């Protein structure tokens, strides 16, 4: 075995590689002193000798990986990375469902609500995260809620009428959340965004509320002679909002446990 390279910084690392021509199948263990690992990767590999990898090394690696996973979850929980957006957009969705019942109807006011509420929702999460940064010292992560908010405004300006279609706004919200979730590698938020988008997209074509209408007739709950069930759509949106809020509450509970 060639002599170890001495240097100012000596670091023990217990990894060993069997030098064979076939693809590497085993990693062995030896104690080797290196200089800066960055400066001598080939020397490190060359110094390794054949043998089987020590259980302790593999265990150490796995423990470090477990540490990484646990710390990541703890930091994410402290940020409220999943609960905050779900609670915000759940509330926005619930209000959007209630509005028609308040007599404001499906006219311009209602569309205006979504045009304003959707980007405001992302901006609200952005401001909350920055307030949290000042208060608790935990940063906002990689997900850029501010950029999504601005993009939505730009989208409404550029695409205009298309996004005014109700389902389009919900899908836009879902896409924004999905972009953030992917940047943060937040699987739970990504799943919630996809579910939200699917429901929003389907409802944009009245697929769910039409089904609700049909069921209401079948169950004898709808005695309207006009054949129309005006409560169907608000009901669907209200359920979507309630489920989103519920998801946010459950996420908040989980975050409290993890942090």
């Amino acid at each position, binding site marked *: 075995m060639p002599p170890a390279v001495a240097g100012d910084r000596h670091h023990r690392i217990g990894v060993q590689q069997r030098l064979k021509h076939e693809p590497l199948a085993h990693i062995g263990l030896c104690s080797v002193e290196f200089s800066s690992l960055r400066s001598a990767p080939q020397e490190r590999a060359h110094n390794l000798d054949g043998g089987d990898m020590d259980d302790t090394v*593999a265990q150490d690696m796995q423990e470090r990986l477990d540490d990484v996973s646990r710390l990541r979850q703890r930091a994410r929980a402290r940020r409220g990375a999943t609960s905050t957006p779900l609670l915000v957009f759940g509330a926005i969705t619930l209000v959007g469902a209630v509005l028609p019942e308040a007599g404001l109807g499906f006219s311009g006011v209602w569309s205006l609500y979504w045009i304003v509420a959707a980007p405001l929702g992302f901006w609200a999460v952005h401001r909350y995260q920055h307030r949290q940064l000042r208060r608790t*010292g935990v940063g906002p992560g990689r997900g850029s809620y501010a950029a999504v908010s601005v993009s939505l405004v730009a989208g409404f300006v550029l695409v205009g009428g298309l996004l005014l279609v109700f389902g389009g706004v919900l899908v836009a919200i879902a896409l924004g959340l999905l972009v953030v979730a992917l940047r943060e590698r937040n699987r739970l938020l990504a799943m919630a965004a996809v579910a939200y988008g699917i429901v929003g997209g389907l409802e944009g074509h009245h697929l769910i509320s039409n089904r609700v209408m049909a069921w209401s007739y079948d169950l004898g709950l709808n005695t309207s002679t006009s054949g129309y069930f005006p409560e169907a759509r608000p009901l669907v949106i209200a359920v979507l909002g309630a489920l989103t809020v519920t998801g946010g509450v459950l996420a908040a509970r989980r975050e409290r446990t993890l942090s």
Partner: protein
Amino acid sequence: MTSDHATSEFVAHPATVLDDVVHQRTRLGILTVLAECQRADFPFLKSVLELTDGNLGRHLEVLADQNLITITKGYEGRRPRTWADITPLGRDALTAQIAAMKELVRRFENGAG
């Protein structure tokens, strides 16, 4: 060809990617938290990593020396605050380190299985 094969294996082996600066357990934890949060202040890092002031300070300096993080000291009103931000280099180093560790564990499990 044999030496080329061996050389390419030396370069590709995950053990060669392991970096002692990043591999150290506390520093790995610091980079992990900062990668998740992008930035954090000293008390938050101390709390989430369960470290003492001196211990955390020492490791932050090592990471800053290697340009894996930046440290910013300032005031918020009268309250002094020290912030740590992960750099793109730090993020890349952490990603490479985690990938190498996962690959080593995978190879060990395949070899043991």
